[in-house]
């Protein structure tokens, strides 16, 4: 016999030893990295605090700070009494007329930004796909454009556009649309790179132009992905548009900012609940829609 049990045993033992060595090396490296980054983030800092009797003590920063989180949340809880529940709620949501208008504005910003983001992202996704780009430099240029569009945070885009176009929802729409274009263009182009090239070749061999090849060879293949990513993006954009008002770009964000800086704690909890409920509804509806579309794609 060429390969004995003993030889197998030796080989196997060596193999196990190598596996263990790899495991421990990786584990130690990860631990060291976690410790170093934690140090950098101030995780292990010790801070001073004043105790109830007025004396000073030292404590780990997280242990010292955690009670203050509770304190903050406690302040945002409104006074609700059983006997006057209606009046108490009315007081909690006292600005509901303004908030309702701004909530509508928030959703509309999210919608319009998604529309522009989908248009831009889809148009750029074809030249940003390695297998479809008509020339190397076009591929490179669109890839970089998409990267810039999504690397700059929405709040920064918003600041720039508020500077250009003034305070209001227009700046918010443009800011979120910009970021969406970058993010969606990337996702769409990755879907484009995974397609079957045979239909594209079929269209090309029939004399179809590059645009024809994209329209008929590529788009029908990626449309379920496009719809799915778009719905997901709409959710994200509504969330973003509720923040973007912080820098004056429209939506509920401006109310959030006022509430935080003027320390109107119960307003803050009311706004949070409104945003949370809206996102939940959109989340639920788009998931339904997405499953329907994907389901249809399978059966037909």
């Amino acid at each position, binding site marked *: 016999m060429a390969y004995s049990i003993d030889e197998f045993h030796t080989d196997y033992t060596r193999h196990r030893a190598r596996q263990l060595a790899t495991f421990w090396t990786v584990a130690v490296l990860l631990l060291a990295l976690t410790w170093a980054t934690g140090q950098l983030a101030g995780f292990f800092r010790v801070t001073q605090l004043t105790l109830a009797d007025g004396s000073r003590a030292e404590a780990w920063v997280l242990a010292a700070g955690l009670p203050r989180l509770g304190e903050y949340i406690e302040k945002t809880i409104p006074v609700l009494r059983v006997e006057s529940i209606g009046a108490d709620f009315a007081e909690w949501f006292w600005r509901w007329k303004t908030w309702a208008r701004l909530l509508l504005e928030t959703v509309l910003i999210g919608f319009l930004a998604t529309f522009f983001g989908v248009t831009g992202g889809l148009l750029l996704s074809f030249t940003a796909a390695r297998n479809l780009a008509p020339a190397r430099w076009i591929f490179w240029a669109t890839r970089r454009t998409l990267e810039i569009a999504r690397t700059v945070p929405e709040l920064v885009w918003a600041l720039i556009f508020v500077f250009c176009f003034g305070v209001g929802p227009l700046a918010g729409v443009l800011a979120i649309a910009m970021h969406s274009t970058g993010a969606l263009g990337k996702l769409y182009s990755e879907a484009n790179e995974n397609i*079957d090239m*045979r*239909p594209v*070749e*079929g*269209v*090309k*061999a*029939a*004399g*179809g*132009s590059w*645009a*024809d090849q994209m*329209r*008929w*060879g590529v788009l*029908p*293949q990626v*449309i379920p992905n496009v719809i799915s990513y778009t719905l997901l993006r709409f959710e994200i954009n509504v969330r973003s548009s509720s923040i973007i008002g912080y820098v004056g770009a429209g939506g509920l964000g401006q109310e959030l900012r006022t509430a935080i800086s003027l320390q109107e704690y119960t307003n803050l909890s009311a706004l949070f609940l409104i945003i949370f409920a809206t996102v939940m509804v959109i989340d639920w509806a788009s998931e339904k829609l997405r499953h329907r579309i994907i389901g249809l794609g399978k059966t*037909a």
Partner: protein
Amino acid sequence: MLLEVRNVSRVFGAKTAVDRMSFTLDKPGFLGIIGRSGAGKSTFLRLVNRLTGASGGEIRFRGKNVLALRGAEMRAWQSQCAMIFQQFNLVPRMDVASNVLHGLLNRRSTLATMFSLWSDADIHRALEILDRLGIAEQAAKRAEALSGGQQQRVAIARALMQDPAIILADEPIASLDPMNAQIVMDSLRRIHDEDGRTVIANLHTLDTARRYCDRVIGMRDGRIVFDGRPDQLSAAVAREIYGANEHFSEAATSTSIDVLEPGDAELLPA
């Protein structure tokens, strides 16, 4: 002179896929190209249709060198020499009629093709062609729902929609069962006989070539090693084309299409 191939080559890195190929076709015909996998048959057809660029040589169609065409002129040529693929290359998620109408992509405005604004006359013609191939009742189905043989006939319909002078068929029956293979080959032969269109078909096997072609070109390692009438395909020629291995050339010469008797095809929709 209809088609004139002169010293055409194609080099991929260190490999010469097509090596100084030359032949002429003076009138419409049914031409078969046979040879082993990798002999350069597919590359040659892709050169003619301009899916691949040539490394050298000329291909003249009615005197014009099609290898020199660019942009819109090249696409116009592509629509004149329709291509049929081994894997059909249809758009799977779209209906059959739309796939056939793709044969018009080069003949209609960009606006019309982007939004599929086909005229009633165009749609009518697509249905007529599908009817001619015996699959009109499949027109509204998704292409991916059809069998392989039906999909290949849709591909032939798309080719006919282009109203081509030449049909290039790259292994059109290699992924089909014997019955469907016969239907597809019969359809191609009929298109040649009735419309006078030239068909150039890459075929794996001698037998299919013998049965359907007026002329056969044998290729080996990118070069033409045989060019003649099908009845001149002797065992010696087969060895030349398929290699010295006795068993291999035996296997290559006998094919699945023999399972049906001549004449059976008339019973089938074509």
